[in-house]
């Protein structure tokens, strides 16, 4: 196996452009990153009943996520064992069995091959159906309703993998009794850019907001102080570099135009509920803007009452496909759900007036980096290096925005996985 660890320089905090544009690197990532890390699949609220299923991707692999009769979630490659055809072409539904459209092999939602056309006449009943069940993804675990799966059966538990990230995820997913629920529908779109550029931005890039989102400030739909930053550095306005390449951005902003009254009221209630459930240090942070990434490619962003959770699926070094859902507290009244949903659509959807700018940058980077000469000159991730601190109140290595301490953690983790061993 090729050792790619030289592409990240831990001393200088630099990253080679080849990390983003090299076809061989990309191919090896599929095995060493997407084949070994926990990958986000679905939220349990999308599969409430036995027989419910959703289809999704793990890296480039199409998978079928099933709620079985016993209530267990099982995940299978969405590919027939006979000729490999994509079994299920639907986004979601409820089914006891899946029939391949090509030759009609049929599997139950526990992956067992239960039907083979002409089993007697053509196979002489000699096919051992037990050997030809769907290929199962060996590890499936959940945290606060978030279902993840992993191709590596020897991987550490999801709990250990998330590590300190759980403390921060609880600010969103454990702040109320009912938790978060997924709204119907999915934003799904293609973007130029390497998947890591999106992941690193959600991990810890507050620095881009002034330039990339300058248009928002110009039309007055940004923060009242003109910065995507609050006034309590280290305490409430900070970034956290977390173990295993995860990262979190936290800050409070006052919007120039204020927020609609029902949303303001709802957020007060949520903060009160959170104080009953979370530690005092956590409760202080509820209601802030939270942006984060679970390595490798599961990102979250909550802002003005909405929560988008998304996966950046790799589609070659130069492209990705985004899946983004909208979530909200189960307790939110319909009026508040509508305010939040419309805000997410306006800001962070394929037509979103923030989203468009981000996507443009990721595409720009790979276009400019792919040249054979440019890729010899490293990219700079030095901002704030050495200036992070630990904090007794919260986990991780902390630094106020802007810093690249957390972002570089993505590449430290990347390097650890992309060595030759």
């Amino acid at each position, binding site marked *: 196996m090729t050792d790619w660890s030289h592409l990240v320089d831990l001393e200088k905090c630099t990253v080679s452009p080849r990390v983003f544009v090299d076809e061989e690197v990309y191919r090896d990532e599929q095995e060493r990153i997407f084949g070994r890390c926990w990958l986000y699949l679905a939220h349990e609220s999308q599969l409430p009943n036995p027989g419910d299923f959703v289809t999704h991707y793990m890296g480039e692999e199409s998978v079928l996520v099933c709620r079985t009769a016993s209530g267990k979630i099982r995940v299978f490659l969405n590919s027939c064992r006979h000729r490999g055809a994509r079994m299920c072409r639907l986004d979601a539904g409820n089914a006891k069995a899946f029939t391949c459209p090509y030759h009609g092999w049929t599997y139950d939602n526990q992956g067992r091959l239960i039907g083979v056309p002409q089993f007697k006449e053509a196979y002489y009943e000699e096919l051992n159906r037990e050997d030809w069940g769907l290929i199962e993804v060996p590890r499936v675990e959940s945290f606060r309703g978030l279902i993840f799966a992993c191709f590596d059966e020897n991987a550490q538990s999801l709990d250990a993998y998330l590590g300190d990230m759980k403390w921060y995820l609880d600010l969103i997913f454990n702040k109320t009794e009912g938790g978060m629920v997924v709204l119907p529908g999915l934003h799904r779109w293609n973007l130029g850019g390497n998947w890591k550029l999106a992941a690193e931005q959600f991990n810890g890039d507050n620095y881009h907001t002034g330039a990339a989102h*300058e248009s928002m400030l110009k*039309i007055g*739909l940004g923060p009242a102080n003109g910065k995507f930053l609050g006034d309590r550095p280290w305490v409430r306005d900070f970034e956290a570099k977390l173990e295993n390449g995860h990262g979190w951005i936290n800050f409070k902003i006052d919007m120039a135009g204020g927020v609609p009254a029902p949303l303001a009221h709802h957020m007060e209630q949520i903060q009160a509920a959170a104080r009953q459930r979370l530690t005092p240090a956590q409760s202080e942070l509820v209601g802030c803007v939270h942006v984060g990434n679970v390595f490798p490619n599961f990102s979250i962003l909550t802002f003005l009452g909405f929560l988008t959770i998304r996966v950046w699926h790799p589609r070659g070094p130069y492209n990705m496909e985004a899946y983004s859902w909208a979530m909200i507290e189960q307790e939110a009244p319909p009026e508040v759900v509508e305010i939040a949903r419309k805000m997410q659509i306006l800001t962070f959807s*394929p*037509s979103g007036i923030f989203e468009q700018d981000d996507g443009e940058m990721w595409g720009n980077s790979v276009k400019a980096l792919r040249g054979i000469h440019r890729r010899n000159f490293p990219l700079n991730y030095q901002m704030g290096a050495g200036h992070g601190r630990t904090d007794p109140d919260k986990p991780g290595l902390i630094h106020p925005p802007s810093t690249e301490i957390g972002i570089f953690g993505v590449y430290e983790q990347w390097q650890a996985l992309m060595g030759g061993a």
Partner: protein
Amino acid sequence: MMDAADRTRLRHEFEELLYYEAWLLDNDKLEEWLELFTDTIRYWAPVRGNLEPGREDLSQPHLLAHFDDDKTSLTLRVKRLRTGAAHAEEPRSRIRHFVSNVQILETDGPDRVKVSSNFQVFRSRWEGTEHLFVGCREDWWRRIDNTWRNEERFILLDHNVLENITVFF
């Protein structure tokens, strides 16, 4: 009740209006385009999925959408394009709207008409990334002071996986 001649006249009237609207969009006259909408406009484009026949329910509450705008948010989108910093439209894309299949679906008195039309929007971005957006629209137009204004635009995009949407339909 409208007779066939009235209906044809009305259809011609809306064909002209929809061609004019496309011309405004293609020629970056977005402020004039905004004037075609009432202050109570709902400009709405729900997401499309891959579901079993009959299970796609576009009227379900809280369904995600590619647009669910009112006059204020549509106006913000236009203002943003004018800042010179809306990077996904800098430099501006070359776009062309094609409108066809115009039908009068319904009338509600002489001053309210429901009109459907199909569209194709071609976008050539920057060095040549080219996209085609295809779909149909169902509009409710209302005659106010002798001028037709759009008070509800439902956009059905025929796409599941999209590209970023920097254009209007």
